[in-house]
């Protein structure tokens, strides 16, 4: 037991070092090069270009990457835990589909011009509506059917993606372009309020998820066996479902659909440190944050001055890394 805790501490230390490195590298890479001299200037002179670039452009973006990456990866870990299914990720439950449909409606109806908040609001509303659909459709005789929840989520994502395609087929090319751009995901958000909401909610989500870390561990044995250990699994599953869906909804509303983080990162963390949720939740959060900061740095520098959609990078990098790790490691993916 003692040994295990030391392993956890070591693992967290490594993740924290990676985190700091990723943030520093991200701060200093970009179109405008910042040298050490300029850095010194930036600290003394708040009017300098270096200071503005660092604090007004790059730092907010890093904070957003950390929040979104952490939130998505955390939700992935939680959802895989409550569904006991390795293929579940935040978007499997139709949350992203609902959010994307909300955004498409806002763009097509022209409501996105009303206020800068209308896109995130519509996205979040779409996510919420899907969430309630999935939840209430899967309640059977007072109990919650986990499998039908999963299936209904998948079906709702198909329905909403078809509805979105319908909207795209009847609207103008310009609108199609903005929908596609949004769906591919972007961390280029300049509104401080939204960034702050994303940061606080993902940190809050991390904190709340730790209140359910024991039930999550018990659920590794299965629903019935967790009940035999005195765990109120129905309540746990409900609360965690809402928590992870809300986190996903906020992430999608602010940054669009950024795939793969919620699927790949929790699995990588599981492979390294095991399935104990006491370390897995924090590990997934930090891992997701590091991953998204790195991907965003690549996305905005690789074809500079242009920017690649972040979803392209997360898909390619995440997918490849995962395949390599999985085919090389002796251990298979296990959830419980």
């Amino acid at each position, binding site marked *: 037991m003692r040994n295990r805790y030391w392993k956890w501490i070591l693992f967290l230390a490594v993740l924290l070092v990676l985190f700091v490195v990723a943030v520093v590298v991200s701060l200093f890479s970009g179109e405008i090069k910042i040298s050490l001299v300029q850095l010194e200037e930036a600290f003394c002179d708040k009017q300098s270009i270096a200071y503005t670039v660092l604090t007004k452009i790059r730092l907010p973006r890093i904070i957003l990457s950390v929040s979104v990456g952490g939130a998505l990866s955390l939700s992935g870990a939680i959802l895989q835990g409550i569904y006991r299914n390795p293929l579940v990720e935040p978007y499997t439950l139709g949350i992203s589909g609902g959010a994307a449909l909300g955004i498409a409606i806002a763009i097509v109806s022209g409501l996105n011009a009303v206020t800068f908040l209308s896109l995130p609001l519509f996205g979040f509303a779409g996510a919420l509506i899907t969430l309630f659909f999935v939840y209430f459709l899967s309640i059977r005789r007072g109990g919650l059917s986990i499998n039908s929840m999963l299936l209904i989520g998948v079906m709702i994502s198909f329905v909403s993606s078809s509805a979105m395609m319908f909207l795209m087929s009847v609207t103008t090319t310009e609108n199609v372009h903005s929908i596609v751009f949004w769906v591919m995901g972007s961390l280029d958000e300049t509104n401080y309020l939204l960034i702050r909401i994303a940061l606080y909610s993902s940190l809050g989500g991390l904190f709340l998820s730790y*209140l359910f870390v024991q039930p999550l561990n018990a659920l590794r044995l*299965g629903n019935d066996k967790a009940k035999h250990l*005195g765990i109120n699994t129905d309540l746990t599953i409900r609360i965690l479902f809402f928590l992870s869906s809300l986190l996903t909804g906020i992430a999608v509303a602010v940054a669009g659909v950024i795939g793969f983080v919620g699927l790949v990162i929790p699995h990588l963390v599981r492979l390294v440190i095991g399935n104990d949720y006491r370390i897995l939740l924090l590990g997934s959060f930090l891992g997701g944050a590091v991953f998204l900061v790195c991907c965003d740095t690549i996305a905005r520098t690789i074809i500079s001055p242009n920017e690649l959609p972040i979803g392209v990078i997360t898909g390619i990098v995440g997918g490849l890394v995962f395949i390599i790790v999985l085919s090389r490691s002796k251990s298979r993916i296990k959830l419980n």
Partner: protein
Amino acid sequence: MDSFFEIRHFSCGYPGHFVLTDIDIEIQKGDFTGIIGPNGSGKTTFFKGISCDLPAISGSIVLKGKALQLMNMKERAQNLAVVTQNIEAGSMTVEEYVLMGRFPYRKKFRFFETQEDLAIAEKYMKLTGVDRLKNKYMNALSGGEQQLAGIARALAQEPKLLLLDEPTAHLDITHQVQILNLIRRLKRELKLTVLMIIHDLNLAGEYCDTLVMMENGCVRKIGTPCEVLNYEDIEAVYKTVVVTQTNPVSGKPAVFLVSEEVST
């Protein structure tokens, strides 16, 4: 005097399906009771009823003067421990798994095991003989070793009643006897009350103090192995021709099957 564990007019089941009707059993403290009966006679439904996996339709189950249905889940888990047939603990070590038996005692914001938890887990791993496997992964264990770990985990719950679902299924005779000897020892040393579903009539007769024979969702007969394991009742319930005799060493009843060619 109230008995230790009472099941009164208990009915449960699935809506519209098979229902267990009006079960009435009393079990004394320290008794080792076996539930026998053919497939589909309601043993598993009964098991799920006691472990509260299925809600009761009527009647009550009372442990030490308190109804199980009225206990909160934590309290119930402190009083009643369940060992199922399949453990499915996957990639966690035996020690981690056994420590899960301490969950019913863990305070809300306690993330780490206390010294007491570790000591209790250690104690029961020693008692069941899985302490030498404690750093192995559960899915690397044999079926018998998994059952032993399951029993160690259940004991770590420090229950008053231990519920076992066919602990000897799919095991060779070495492990069957090892597990049942262990349960007898637990009864003797820890004064534990044990309720077990078991298919093998000979093992049931050899080890249990009391047998409950079930048929079509009702109790057909309750009593000592000698009273229950007679050929009339067995042939009526199992629709199979058998001969019963007494084990010359233990004096317990033994059941022999008779094949079709011989009996006709």
